[in-house]
């Protein structure tokens, strides 16, 4: 039976964080970039939950509460980003962040 410890959670979270950063760097599609951000936020949320379970003083739920706020804020942020993106899409017909470049010297 595999013994799951803090280390394993942290490893998964670190991989998820790295995957998120990779997506953000390599993809030019604004929606794909937002997916990458989502991965990073979930990596942080997993960290908080795991740390709360394994290394916080007993009886304290700071990490769990923080995770709930991360989930809520991620949803709010995605809603705002998509609203702005939709508005831009109606003007330009593209969601490619490199195409949105009229603001440049």
């Amino acid at each position, binding site marked *: 039976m595999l013994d799951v410890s803090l280390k394993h959670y942290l490893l998964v979270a670190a991989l998820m964080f790295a995957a998120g950063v990779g997506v953000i760097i390599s993809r030019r599609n*604004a929606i794909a970039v937002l997916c990458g951000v989502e991965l990073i936020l979930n990596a942080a949320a997993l960290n908080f939950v795991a*740390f709360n379970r394994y290394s*916080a003083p007993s009886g304290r739920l700071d990490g769990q509460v923080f995770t709930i706020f991360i989930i809520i*804020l991620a949803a709010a942020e995605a809603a*705002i980003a998509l609203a*702005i993106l939709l*508005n831009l899409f109606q003007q330009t017909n593209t969601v490619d962040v490199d195409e949105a470049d009229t603001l440049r*010297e």
Partner: protein
Amino acid sequence: MQNSIETARRIVAEGMSGIIPEILLCALVCVLLLADLFIRGIKPRTTAWIAVLGFVACGAALIARNGVHAEVFGWQQADGMRGMLLNDQFAWFFQVFVLATALVCIPMAMDHAAFRARRMGEFYALLAAATLGMFLMASATNLLMAYLGIEFASMASYLATAYDKRDRAGSEGGLKYVIYGSVASGIMIYGLSLIYGMTGSLHYTDIAQALHVSAATEGQLLIAAILIFGGFAYKMAAVPMHFWCPDVYEGAPTPFTAYLSVASKAAGFAVFVRFLAAFTAHGGPTFTGFGGMEFEASFGWPVIVAAAAALSMTVGNLGALWQTNVKRMLAYSSIAQAGYLLMAVAVYAAGHDKPNGGDLAPLVFYFIAYFFMNLGAFHVISVVGSRTGAVTVSDFAGLGRRAPWMAFGLGVCMLSLLGMPPTGGFVGKMQLLQTAVENNLVWLAVLAGINTAISAFYYFKLLKSMYLEKSAGGVIQSGSANLAVLALLVAPLFVLGLAFSPIAEFSRGFGF
């Protein structure tokens, strides 16, 4: 169980009296949204006055809070109170600062051309919401509260940037803002999770104590610190998270650009300095690191901040040299200003536990000067831009003849941003340089001096365009209200430059 619910109820009931200004802002947001929704044909002027009333009421409640030192929503621990927010003089200064900025932005928004023929309730609601977020940023002493404050202010700012839906530049600026912003906050939150893991707590005081005995190595702390600094640098518009700044400042409606460049930056500094204080408190634990050398808990912070300061001022000033759009030029200028301000933070981080170190007075004084010079500059840009339709440097040609008072005001603000006497920018910059030299950051002070010389090129480019270049354009009617606002913003710059000692004395009262 019953007992803990009772405790929670008591904490909330007691906390409410500590957040009256915040509650008023919250009510203002609701009133503005409802008024916009339900009152048919409500005029932009009416909603603007509602916003002014709300902000003034909030200001009155805030003034009543002067001198208070209290943890809000706190619980008792063996060695004292722990709260979500800490109302102290430091928070008070930045809250007054942010509120004053929001108030100045209202007449600017009332005059803004693109805002005239549309409903404005939502814009003022977003302005109030961003202000509320920045209030929380200034007083947060808990990582959760700091994160919520940052996100709250950011989300309102994203929407206000893209407020003019028909304007392509605004939508594009808003998109870049929200994309960069969510990346920066995501990276920061990952860093915060690491800090939580190393210390087991979210409250700054507990973090400071836990770091004292923490088994975390200096390398682990450094990784977390760099990730977290990404998020703070984004709010301060400092290197390495400055990419968004020029596009957003250019795309956003000018009154909101002014708000972003002043209030948002100040709130970013406030939340960062508070966070930094947790790391440098108690003299700091020592780590045995590489080759048996001992490190303090503040470990890399003075170096990280000093490097960010050096890079911000250099990148900002070099970037500004090639700009033709004045809003974009001032965006780079504000990156450079963040660099000068970070210089004071680097001194603070290095000397927090030393007897004469940890002095925040130069930072506060420079922010007071920055308030007047940057808002003054954006006010002129907003007025001129609303009447000529464009804001490139060549559009300002002959402004000395077309709108003499506006040109004079912008000129004074430019000289102050550059740091020339007899303006407040000069005194502020001298204080920053002096503290840097006194605290063994001579190289940084020299770099700031070189940067000031570089910045003279672009500030004078605008002055030259206004006074030496001819233009066929006719006289610009600025309107008496706009001139009054300009006078209120420019006159204090001379006071700060000539009779600065009472204000320098005043700025000493806002440390921890």
